[in-house]
């Protein structure tokens, strides 16, 4: 079965400094991986996705993530944090077509990112 572990429940950075949100996954297949962001009182927005193409994935708002199969990791990074990045971030796994886990997203517990002036 698939699972996702987000290694930090809270991350606090200063504006203009790098962001690193860590995620490890478990899957019996070659999964698809996603990062979603959830701002207060708003729906989930897809930041980026990995679906077995390039291992370095670029997303919206300057975020990127690198798929490392040997480490079963999919960490999210951004070179310079902005105040508007403060939100809850979810790492998500889904198994490929033909597997029992296809079509459903398995979410991690989330990492709350705080950005200080």
């Amino acid at each position, binding site marked *: 079965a698939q699972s996702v572990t987000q290694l930090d429940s809270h991350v606090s950075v200063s504006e203009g400094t790098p962001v690193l949100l860590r995620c490890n996954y478990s899957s019996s297949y070659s999964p698809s991986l996603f990062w979603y962001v959830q701002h207060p009182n708003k*729906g*989930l927005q897809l930041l980026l996705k990995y679906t077995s193409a390039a291992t370095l994935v670029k997303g919206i708002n300057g975020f990127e993530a690198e798929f490392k199969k040997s480490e079963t990791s999919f960490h999210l990074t951004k070179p310079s944090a902005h105040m508007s990045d403060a939100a809850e971030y979810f790492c998500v796994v889904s198994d490929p077509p033909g597997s029992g886990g296809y079509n*459903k997203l398995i*979410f991690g517990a989330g990492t709350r990112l705080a950005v200080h002036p």
Partner: protein
Amino acid sequence: DAGVTQSPTHLIKTRGQQVTLRCSPKSGHDTVSWYQQALGQGPQFIFQYYEEEERQRGNFPDRFSGHQFPNYSSELNVNALLLGDSALYLCASSPPGQGSYEQYFGPGTRLTVT
């Protein structure tokens, strides 16, 4: 182009009651998934509807049921409400053939059970 819409925004129910939540998918999307997000947790997959049938289901009891209409909109029904059913219920829609690759989420319905 309207995104995924859900109604109502907020709902308060009493234990033992029944509730129906509604979702309209993004234009052109034919698949609807439902998720439950308890406070401080990540969303959990409830089930997915495609061609008016439940295609896949997560680990939720039979008290949770759903329906998809010919226009692709969907309802989530919860019977015999428990305090633990209090959560944000999220609906997500997908375009044809995309499954989990492209899921667009609505703003959610906040259900409080007292």
